């Protein structure tokens, strides 16, 4: 490793870490007037507030965000796996067009689509419901999941499935003992990806949820408007921690492959 790559490596680490400093400092400051470089008084008022006074709301936000992201991810995986298999393994007429259509929601912002079906969701009673928001998130989580799994299936060799079949395995056994273990790293990446997308979604949750579904991003936006910096900083950290935890858990499992394709 030469000097230049050490420098670039250090640069990356510093650039990644710096934005966490203001959040950490603000979350443990009780008094921090300009132009003091460090808080005049350290304290845990921000953390106490979100543990006690706003504790119930934050917990509900965490539960709401997590369950939304989990349900969305499961639905995306269930629907995306077969479609990605078809796109990644086989050639068929119209494949380009179908692929383009399935991936188009990646580049069309969720805002445009959510505004479009909002009125329709109100009429059929899906607005302000959990199911309605899952459907809103699914609109763009599904295409991203297909995008990741399509890549996974192009490197996949289905001949192993035929071998297992010829040895007498049932289709279910093939699925559980051959197919799933082979594509598991890919499924983990796709799942993490879809989870994070749903987890950090603000606007489509607000439009379809109508302020009824208080996810963490919605609480955080409200806090920023109220201008209480220590509390907003603490909630921001709460918002990051589960995803970071998932990353650490995944880092060991995925190894060098990392999270290609996740944003």
């Amino acid at each position, binding site marked *: 490793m030469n000097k230049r*790559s*050490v420098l*670039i*490596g250090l640069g*990356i*680490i510093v650039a*990644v870490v710096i*934005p966490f*400093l*203001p*959040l950490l400092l603000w979350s443990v400051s009780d008094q921090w007037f*300009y*132009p003091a470089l460090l808080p005049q008084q350290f304290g845990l008022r921000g953390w106490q507030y979100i543990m006690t006074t706003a504790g119930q709301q934050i917990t509900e936000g965490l539960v709401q965000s997590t369950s939304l992201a989990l349900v969305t991810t499961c639905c995306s995986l269930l*629907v995306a796996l*077969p479609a990605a298999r*078809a796109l990644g393994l*086989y*050639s*068929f007429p119209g494949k380009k067009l179908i*692929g*383009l259509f*399935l*991936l188009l*929601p*990646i*580049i*069309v*912002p*969720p805002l*445009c*689509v959510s*505004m*479009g*079906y909002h009125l329709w969701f109100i009429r059929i009673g899906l607005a302000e419901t959990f199911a309605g928001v899952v459907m809103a998130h*699914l609109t763009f989580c*599904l295409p991203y999941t297909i*995008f990741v799994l399509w*890549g996974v299936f192009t490197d996949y060799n*289905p001949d192993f499935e035929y071998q297992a079949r010829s040895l007498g395995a049932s289709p279910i056994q093939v699925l559980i003992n051959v197919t799933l273990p082979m594509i598991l790293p890919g499924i983990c990446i796709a799942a993490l990806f879809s989870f994070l997308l749903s*987890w*950090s979604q*603000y*606007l489509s949750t607000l439009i379809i949820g109508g302020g009824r579904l208080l996810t963490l*991003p919605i609480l*955080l936006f409200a806090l*920023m408007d109220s201008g209480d910096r220590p509390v907003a*900083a603490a909630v*921001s950290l709460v*918002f*990051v921690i589960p*995803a970071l935890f998932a*990353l650490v858990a995944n*880092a060991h499992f995925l190894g*060098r492959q*990392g*999270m*290609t*394709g*996740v*944003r």
Partner: protein
Amino acid sequence: MFSPVAEDETRTRTIETGHLLLLLTPALLIILVLFGGGLLLGTLQALSSQPFTEKNALTFAHFTAVLADPDFATSFALTLYIATVSTLVAVIASVVVAISLVRCSAGNRVLNFFLQIPLTVPHLVIAISLLLLLAPTGILSRLCSFLGISKGAASFPLLVNDPYAIGILLTYIWKEIPFITFMILAVLKNSGNELNEVGRTLRANSWQRFRHITLPLIAPSLGAAGFIVFAFTFGAFEVPYLLGRTYPMVLPVWAYKNYTDIDLMARPEGIAIGLIIAAIATCSLLLSQGLMQLARRQREYPGE
């Protein structure tokens, strides 16, 4: 082709139509109903004269009202500026980072981990943290006055809610560099170092090796990643809402403001702006597809 993999013409595995339909139908149905339906219903609302009453007539009035608004041009220019600059900077930085990461495989695991962190941080959180860092009373300004570089909040340059959208650009660049880097790292790792060694034995200098070996290798995934980032930043709401100025607004913020206006008649105009954003994103996708095909043809049959 906008797909996660380069086109593979040799793939000839076929499948029965019935089985194929079984695999594809659920996904197609969901995208058709939710995405296609959303766009269609949006179009219907944006085209109707009084969308919330019974007496309805088709009209282009809302679209013409938006396009004729003098604010449209300024909003469009600001949105295009933010999306273009942040994508370009992120693309160039990602190429540098990815190539240096491939070269120094020793520190890879640690760096890989750190580089993955921004992927997990929601845009909203990084926007808030940059607000606390870059605002006139933010930490950077405190540091500058501590070191005697600036004299207090008033003399500190405006970095958020500023005309050049510095805060917004930095947020996007911080967030998108790892995304693009990992997309091209996958290609670089799979391709190995042999081609570069061949280039070296043929006495190509490092710029020539980059221009004629590495760049053509990563171009398809670099293009796809860059395009996804561009389309995302063009249509994103949270970051410009928090870090942008109140005037001019970027197109998504303007659309949302109109959509939630107390005046119900502003609603179809909000949807019309949303559809214009969707149309711009789709058109630029088709355009970049066409350009890529043209470039490929030029490479295969030069001088045609």
